[in-house]
């Protein structure tokens, strides 16, 4: 758990690196202990990622980037303790809800996962993009443009369906596409450091307002916002169980849904505690449910699960439907280790709130060079590529420009993550249906997703219409008096 916490806190490293380094240590262990150890590491990563996301706007892991959006503004308002307290408890509760959901789903996991084919995955990607675009009320046009730019970037690289290198500008590094983690470090950590150095001062706008002792309130806030926790956990569980979608989508989708459901959506991005609770609950719930496709089909939902597959195979456990039947002891051991680690990491995170929150008072002239150096070297460390550093710097500048001109970074991130999934699944769907788009209407899950899509697209207009009508009625009543 401590290893996971530590790796989660360093931008660019995260669970995949932690697990990769752990592989040699598991050689001498039996399968049960090795899986429990891996579960312990994976459970600690999200809390580590959240701490740096809140304090420094530097997400330790890609899914934690969603926590930056409101967690960091809270830190700037002197509410770092409150935000970390809320993140910790949402993490722990999300993990527990995720575990319960997975234990309930496990017997029918195979049937559920098989419901999602290319048409459903394409529509799910579209739903993800629409949720984010419509959530940015008042900035919908710029949100759509940012999302479009993210999509355009996601098309860079080798297209496995057509075997064509696209938009790589002749740069071999781009053959694998725009790498998401270095891009996220740039968009959030580095962009924030540029912003901080332009603003001057410390992360916290007014040092007198720092409330480090408010972490207990943060814990309580999570219980007060129980709907957000439950919604986030369920989103995390569902998205995590879908092969190839991953935690970043879960956390951003949960954030966007919280914004959609909020009575005060305009406060999101400015330090709304729901914006911390929602992604945190989703991240840990996802950690449990993404075991389902990994164990049942050998399909990893991300880099972390891909390395985890390596540990499974190393210990003679062949992922597949039979594994859920033949290795129940190991699987339940893994799930419980993961859950215990989630809860423990939250407590340990809380113990360090006080010294960590003091970081928000550090002068930007000291903080900026050190954090920038660690962020860029962390980006290099992902796969020992200096091009990662250049990509992170590019996205840092782009991220700052987006802050400066108020283009939402959220849309760009979600599009960057979902773009290639959407395209691949669209083409596969068209092949399945011999080019007939009506294939989308012949499948039950697709029909549900289409209805959801229509609701998402129509609801902001209806809400705006209702708001205008209410305003007109109030104005008429006011003038008649």
């Amino acid at each position, binding site marked *: 758990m401590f290893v996971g916490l530590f790796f989660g806190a*360093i931008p660019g490293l995260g669970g995949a*690196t932690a697990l990769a*380094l752990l592989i040699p240590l598991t050689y001498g262990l039996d399968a049960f202990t090795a899986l429990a150890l891996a579960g312990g590491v994976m459970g600690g990563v999200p809390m580590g990622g959240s701490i740096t996301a809140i304090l420094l706007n530097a997400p330790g892991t890609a899914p934690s980037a969603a926590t930056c959006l409101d967690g960091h503004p809270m830190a700037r308002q002197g509410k770092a303790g409150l935000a970390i307290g809320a993140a910790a408890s949402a993490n722990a509760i999300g993990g527990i809800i995720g575990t319960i959901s997975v234990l309930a789903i496990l017997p029918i996991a195979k049937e559920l996962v098989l419901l999602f084919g290319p048409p459903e995955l394409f529509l799910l990607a579209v739903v993800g993009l629409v949720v984010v675009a419509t959530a940015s009320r*008042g*900035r*919908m*046009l*710029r949100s759509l*443009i940012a999302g*479009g*730019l993210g*999509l*355009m970037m996601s*098309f860079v690289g080798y297209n496995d*369906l*057509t075997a*064509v290198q*696209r*938009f790589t500008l002749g740069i071999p590094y781009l053959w694998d596409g725009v790498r998401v983690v270095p891009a996220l470090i740039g968009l959030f950590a*580095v962009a924030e*450091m*540029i*912003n901080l*150095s*332009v*603003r*001057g001062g410390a992360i916290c706008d007014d040092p007198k307002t720092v409330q480090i002792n408010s972490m207990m309130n943060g814990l309580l806030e999570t219980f007060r916002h129980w709907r957000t926790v439950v919604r986030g956990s369920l989103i995390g569980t569902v998205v995590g169980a879908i092969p190839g979608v991953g935690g970043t989508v879960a956390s951003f989708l949960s954030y966007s849904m919280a914004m959609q459901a909020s009575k005060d959506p*305009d406060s999101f*991005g*400015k330090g709304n505690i729901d914006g911390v609770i929602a992604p945190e609950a989703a991240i840990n719930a996802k950690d449990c449910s993404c075991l389902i496709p990994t164990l049942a089909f050998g399909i990893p939902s991300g880099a972390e699960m891909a390395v985890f597959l390596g540990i499974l195979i190393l210990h003679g456990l062949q992922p597949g439907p039979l594994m859920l039947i033949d290795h129940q002891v190991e699987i339940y051991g893994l799930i419980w280790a993961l859950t215990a680690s989630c809860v423990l990491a939250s407590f340990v995170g809380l113990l360090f709130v006080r010294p960590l929150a003091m970081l928000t008072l550090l*002068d930007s*002239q*000291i903080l*900026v*060079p*050190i954090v*920038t*150096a*660690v962020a*860029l*070297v*962390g980006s*290099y*460390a992902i796969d*020992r590529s*200096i091009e990662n*550093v*250049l990509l992170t*710097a590019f996205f*840092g*500048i782009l991220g*700052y*420009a987006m*802050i*400066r*001109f*108020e*283009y939402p970074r959220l849309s760009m991130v979600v599009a960057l993550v979902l773009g290639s999934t*959407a395209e691949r699944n669209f*083409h596969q769907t068209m092949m399945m249906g011999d080019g007939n788009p009506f294939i989308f209407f012949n499948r039950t899950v697709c029909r549900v997703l289409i209805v959801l899509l229509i609701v998402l697209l129509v609801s902001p207009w209806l809400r705006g219409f209702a708001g205008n009508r209410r305003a007109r009625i109030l104005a008429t009543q006011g003038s008649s008096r």
Partner: protein
Amino acid sequence: MNLTPKSIFGESPKRIFGEGWIDALPAMVILALTVAFLIVGYRYPPLARQFPITVAWVILALAGLDIASRIDSPIGAALKDRLDRGGSVAEKIGSRRAQVGAVVWLAGFAVLLWLFGVLYAVPLYVFASLRLRGHRPWLRCLLGAAASTAIVWLLFSAALRIELYRGIIFGGA
């Protein structure tokens, strides 16, 4: 070459976009990038370009709307009200010089890393940053540079056994 907004756009952009003309710049850059994306995209086989080209045409339209909504006219105002009311995040923007300076420092550090590698670039950057931007005393700058290099080395090289990049000048690939 005298690169002023007037020399680039011909007519004074202030006359078209009003005082907030600089806010229209990103939309124009996006428009130009999307056109370039479309030109490159049409060179690919039909199946490979189908999805990217569709997205690019949508972005082109959206960027056009964004530019139109920023034009200082009743139509621009109406578009802005319908599509993009703003909702500022109330960031303190800072002077243009500070903005350019911060970006140049970051770009400089990335180039330093690429040329000289981690173990030379990190102390150089931290020292220069503390001394030239933070105006800290020499000794503190030296200590800061040494401490941050030690943190990076301990974290990545000693603990994680990651071979730190040596820089293109010193044989790093």
